[in-house]
């Protein structure tokens, strides 16, 4: 139980971040539904965000990134929003073309 009472360090955050990341990646790799893939992407991005926040926090580490970490996280959030908008548009268009949003159906770009 001692582990649960130990002080929260960067490593804990990193572990959670890695968990999100891996979950996100698996989600991207396994989901056939385009919306599921999108969610996986969000998870990956947020896992990365968690890392930035952790490295940027002055309570957790001496050699902190400082405000840079938070700012990068902010950028990533904005990017994620933009990306979600574009991706949803793609999904709609995909649906128009294929009457489904199963990404496995969109293999016309096969080399």
């Amino acid at each position: 139980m001692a582990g649960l009472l130990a002080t929260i360090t960067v490593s804990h955050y990193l572990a959670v971040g890695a968990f999100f990341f891996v979950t996100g990646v698996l989600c991207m790799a396994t989901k056939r539904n385009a919306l599921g893939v999108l969610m996986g992407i969000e998870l990956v991005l947020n896992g990365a965000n968690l890392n930035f926040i952790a490295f940027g926090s002055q309570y957790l580490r001496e050699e902190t990134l400082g405000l840079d970490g938070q700012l990068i996280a902010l950028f990533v959030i904005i990017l994620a929003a933009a990306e979600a908008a574009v991706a949803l548009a793609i999904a709609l268009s995909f649906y128009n073309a294929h009457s489904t949003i199963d990404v496995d159906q969109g293999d016309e770009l096969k080399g």
Partner: protein
Amino acid sequence: MDTSLLPILLGLAVLLPLGSFWVILLAGNRLGKQAATVAVGAIVGAGVLSFWSLAIWLVHYYPTESGHGTEHHDGGLEHGHSDSDGHSPEPHALRSGHAPARAAADGVSGPDTLTADLTQLVSLATDDAHGVAGPSPAEPTDGESAPQEARGPPFAGDYYTLGLFGRMRLTIGYYIDTLTVLMFCMVTLIASCIHFYAIGYMHEELHDVTDHEVTLSSGRHLTRPGRFHRFFQYLSLFCFSMLGLVLAGNIAMVFVFWELVGICSYFLIGFYIERKSATNAANKAFIVNRVGDFGMIIGLMALWTGLGTFSFGSVDANSNGTIEADEQGMFELVRPGPDHHYRVPLGMALAESRKEVATLVQSWNAEAARSGKRLDKEELHQRLARHAEQAGWLEPQGDKAPRGYWWLIIGGVGIFCGCVGKSAQFPLHVWLPDAMEGPTPVSALVHSATMVAAGVYLVGRFYPMFTPEVLWVIAVVGCITLFMAATIAITATDIKRVLAYSTISQLGYMMLSLGVGGWAAGLMHLVTHAFFKSLLFMCSGSVIHAVHTNDMMEMGGLRKKMPYTAYTMLVGCLAIAGVSIPFVVGFSGYYSKDRILEQAFVFMQQNHSVWGALFFYAALGGAAITAFYMFRLWFLTFAGKPRNQHRYDHAHESPKVMYVPLIILAVFATGVAWKPFSWLPGSGLHLAALLEQARPAGVHGDLTGYWTRLVWPDEHFAHAPEQFYSVVVPVTLLATGTALSGISLAAVMYLWGWLSPGDVRRRFPRVYAFLWNKWYFDELYGFLFVRPTLGVARLVALFDRRWIDWVVDGCASLTRAFANAWEKIVDRGVVDGLANLFAGWVWSIGVWFHRLETGRLRQYVLYLIVGFLALFVLVSLFWSTTLAGGP
């Protein structure tokens, strides 16, 4: 008005035509008629400068009457020379400083026949001239002891040194004496007249010209743009070349201008370049001259080997006031002061005794080496000079010539070879009649003032270098030429060809005169002949301009149509025939030709040899024939009835710009040898006296050679008062008699018709054919030289095609085969193979990779992950703190 101005003035006179040449060359056709203005301006400017120089010369060295005098041959200077040779200052008199003393000494001893005022003038002039050299210890102060003659020194100097090659100094130099100045005046005056005349003669060239002598393959005549500007451009270059040649101070420069004159004549003879005959004539002139120039180059090499200098006069090159050994000119080396007698220069003697010199030098070197020294070049040269002196190498051994004598002969004959080519002497005279293909003003220029005059001028200029043996060669060549050309002229019917042969004949006269010792006579004839021959040519041009044919058989009676041309030409004929009232007055040809005949006569008297008689009687016979064919020409052209009515009707007098030069030249042809100021007491100003001032030091006095026993009499001998009745009177009467007989024979045959030329022709068919075919010279040369050359050329061409081509073709096919093999193996195999191999690899890699491109999104994500992991593993494995920039 100092004599130091002379080189500048004359140098400018040379450069003006060159400037005109460049202006016309660069401006080209745009100038139009202004080309003539430029060229005329340049040559008239040169003429003004030349006469300015003559004036300066006369102010300083006015020729004076020496007291004796025959009726007409009273050159002022002859008398004083017979007793001493010392009158002639050395070429460097102006700079060396000791000449004034000698001149003064002459003055004391010389006979005094001058009136006081003129003496004053003369002594002033000499004072002024000597002023350049600094104070003189024995300047004549009173009129009584003034110099008996005012004789200018030759001015020799350098404008610019081109280079020093060992002992050889290559410079742009000048050599100025009265001969130079007179030639300048003569050339520029005649050339100016010819330029003006050419404006009229060449006016057709201002527009497109249809050449009726050139038929194209389409059957029509050639029409081409006019070449007015080009004509004047060449004329300017021609004048530049000739003036440069006359001014040249060394033989190398002479050679350069010599060739320039040659190339200009080539351009101008071939002016109607579309005519085959014109290009042939131009080639002939150029090639024949090459033959002569080949000899000239040999002569130049011989002279340079023996003398080590090209310079005529001694030039104080380092300006230290004295002439050192390596600054001496050729004349000084061959005829050293003070007596200016012939001496074989040391260099030539050493060159002939090369073996002895080698042993001597070897032994001296060995001797010096034993005592541990080394002899430098200077020391060796001095020892050789001493040895040559002691061993008597420079002296004639009994009857044998001194060592190195034949080097002088080779040099002299070589230089004369060049003159034979340029002055159209036998056997290289064949180019000159063909040179009639050029426009007539060119003929006039080539045949009077420039090209052919150059040869005679050079013989005159080079005179101190000629040994008696060379003079003999010159005389023989001149003698053959004058007689041969005169006889050919009898039968010619082309008006310009008659004049061409007449020119050759007159040049033969000059050469003969120079060859028998008549230096002043020959050069005087050069000047007088230049005037009347240019006049005659321009008159014939005027006639051709009017009737558009050269054939005299289609002329006749033109006197009424073109009076100016007819009577100026009559003056020319009278001048060339040497007509005179004996001992009173005559045309210019009378004075010069009589001098030549007198010299030949004296030569005959003093040598009881067949040569003397040959020279004199050939000259005399030539004079008669000259008179005959010149008046035949005049009667056929201007007298009698027109033989071609159509041409006669179209004939007209030439425009003013053409006949005014004729009148000017006629005036000079009449009176150029007169004494203009004979009413002035003591004035000896006339052509002969001026030339006499330029007489090279040491060439007067009797001469005899080693290999010939002939004696070359002093030219002044004939004009001594005591010889008046034994030489002058018989020769003058004989000459006048022959001239009159020639003229009357012409009148009998062609004016009055008492003797039909056709009958004479039928009576002597062989002689006629011989003369009509010009002594078969062209055929002979064709047989001797042209055909063998062509035969050899054909053989060589065969060899070329058979063997040389075979080798060349073989090389070519070898190269081709090699190239083919190379292409197959190296290029296609190695280079292309490598490139294709890589391309194949890249292709197959691409093909392999495209299998990854499944189009399935989730698979891509898998790749992403795999790649990311791989990167992660790699970085983890190879990570190090140094890579990250840590400690």
